[in-house]
């Protein structure tokens, strides 16, 4: 059980739930899945303030999609349009053969876990979970068994009779999850549900939530501003910036092959190299390497871990090399981030195994294939 325990506090195995069912390395099979939700050219403006510009996005059956973006990027608005709390100014939302955006929220087979959980304070945990079923007038015997099952799934059976104000934030979160899932929605929307939790609990809940999603097989749309959270949990990430989609791809793809400078910078650290291509040769300041790119200005993203520190004597002809002086070292445990002032004014950040001694003059090298060309993101607000 201990092998996927993260650096934080989830080593307390008695607390962590369903952890044993987590598949380790899991590249989800998405290609064969059918589309569940289709967002078509959805735009939204409040007065003159444009929040979303023609967003098109598809979510597959059973997919865990994360909408990632800074605050003000429009991610919560997009979620609220799907849930039915906001009306889109333009565009359509479809679920299978149904036009979703014309239906009131209570007709949509979509449930939401709210950022502040929005549990009903005057009802017990059990009554909160039963709410949807009671409104739908299910028989009481069915309600009882489904509540029991849902509370069991989130390990909250012991608190069934408590009022929401008497349980902790993490527990409230689980109740909110149970309250939504008990209705067997086709799609679950989660609006930054982990943002109120402390770091350790948060990491634990990321793992649990992901496992739960696998178990129930319901599509999740998860909204967050935390890129690390998005990477850990998602099948795909939709990166939203100022109301437009920057890139939609799997975490590995978006990290390994960011489409834009913004994507490269927002997800993980990166070095952006501005250069020029002239007849098959790239020039970035003092750095040069050959490339088959067409002539013209170009922008590269080079991840810090793809730059190596070389001993002075090494000679590897395929690598681009540059001499530099270390200006800062930030210790991160297993690795450290080293800021290097290179010849020609270029500053590179390098991720290297933590060294025992301070560094001064270093020789850096990287392979040209790790320099990923990205488009310069349009300047927006």
């Amino acid at each position, binding site marked *: 059980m201990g092998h996927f325990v993260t650096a934080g506090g989830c080593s307390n195995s008695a607390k962590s739930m369903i952890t044993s069912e987590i598949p380790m390395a899991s590249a989800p099979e998405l290609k064969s899945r059918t589309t569940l939700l289709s967002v078509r050219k959805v735009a939204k403006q409040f007065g003159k303030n444009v929040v979303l510009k023609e967003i098109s996005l598809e979510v597959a059956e059973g997919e865990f999609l994360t909408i990632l973006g800074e605050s003000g990027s429009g991610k919560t608005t997009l979620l609220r349009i799907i849930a039915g*709390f906001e009306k889109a100014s333009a565009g359509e939302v479809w679920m299978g053969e149904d036009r979703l955006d014309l239906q*009131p929220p*209570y007709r949509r087979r979509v449930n939401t876990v709210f950022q502040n959980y*929005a*549990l*009903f304070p005057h009802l017990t945990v059990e009554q909160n979970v039963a709410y949807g079923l009671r*409104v739908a007038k299910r028989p009481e015997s069915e309600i009882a068994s489904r509540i029991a099952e849902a509370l069991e799934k989130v390990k909250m059976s012991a608190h069934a009779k408590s009022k929401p104000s008497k349980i902790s934030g993490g527990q409230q979160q689980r109740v909110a999850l149970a309250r939504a899932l008990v209705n067997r929605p086709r799609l679950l929307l989660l609006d930054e549900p982990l943002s109120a939790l402390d770091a350790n609990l948060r990491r634990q809940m990321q793992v649990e939530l992901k496992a739960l999603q696998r178990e129930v097989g319901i599509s999740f749309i998860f909204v967050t501003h935390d890129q690390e959270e998005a990477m850990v949990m998602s099948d795909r990430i939709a990166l939203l910036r100022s109301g437009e989609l920057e890139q939609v791809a799997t975490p590995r793809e978006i990290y390994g092959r960011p489409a834009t400078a913004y994507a490269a910078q927002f997800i993980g650290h990166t070095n952006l190299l501005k250069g020029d291509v002239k007849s098959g040769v790239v020039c970035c300041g003092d750095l040069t390497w050959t490339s088959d790119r067409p002539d013209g200005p170009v922008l590269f993203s080079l991840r810090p871990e793809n730059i190596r520190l070389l001993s002075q004597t090494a000679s590897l002809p395929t690598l681009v090399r540059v001499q530099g002086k270390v200006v800062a070292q930030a210790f991160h445990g297993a690795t450290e981030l080293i800021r290097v002032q290179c010849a020609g004014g270029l500053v590179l950040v390098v991720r290297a195994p933590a060294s025992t001694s301070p560094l001064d003059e270093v020789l850096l090298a990287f392979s040209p294939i790790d320099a990923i060309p990205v488009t310069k993101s349009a300047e927006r607000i």
Partner: protein
Amino acid sequence: MSSTARISNSNWLFLHAVCVFAFLYLPIAVLILYSFNREGVGGFPPHHLTLDWYRTLFGDGPMWDSVLNSLQVAAVAMAISLALGIPAALALDRAQFPGKALFRRLVLLPLILPGIITGLSLLMLFNLTNTKLSLATIILGHGTALISVATTEVFAGLQKLDRSQEEASLDLGANYWQTFWRITVPNLKLPIIGAALLIFTLSMDEIAVSFFLIGRDNTLPLEIWGRLRRGITPEINAVSAIIFVFSLVAIVLWYRLRVRGEGQPDVGTEITAAAEGQMV
């Protein structure tokens, strides 16, 4: 040195507080005391305590009729002001309509207007429409004047309500009507009960508006007022003491509900309460 100065300073403040308190409550204390005095309103300090005045009071038919009239008026006026005030509060909180800011101020107007004006204008209206003055007209008068209490109390409750709870309810399949009854109303329970208590109390001892709209049947305050013209009787002291106790209980209940519902009443509601006090 400075600490002794501070101590004597705080002693003065304490004395001042005692004086203010005495100024406010001594008359009421004397009234209650006299209601137990065998010699009636004369003779201080009272030598013999008695419950005779209460006995007389309980045998006084017209007085009890007026109490029943007042209870009836208060109950119906409460229902009317809540029925009209709660939707008004909802409109203020949720709806966007032209003139909303104006409406918000106008709805408070009956609180601030002297009761004479409300009473007089209603009297003119009833004259114009040839309506016979009766308890019904008093009920309408109280209902009108006290809508603003219901609206302000419930509006304050709505402002503190977490809207995402209502969204959660819609999200879980409840339509707007179900959401209102299952989520909004239970969360407004305290402000609604508080408003009801306050309206009831205010209506019970309202004079100014009632005075203009009275028909053949007296309300309790008007009955008392009528008898006072023939001189103060200890019986009136007794009925006043009873009213005082009931009002006190209602106000304490209202205040405690309010504190429980909102932590601490804020300055705005204190002012509202003060304005409401002024109206009585």
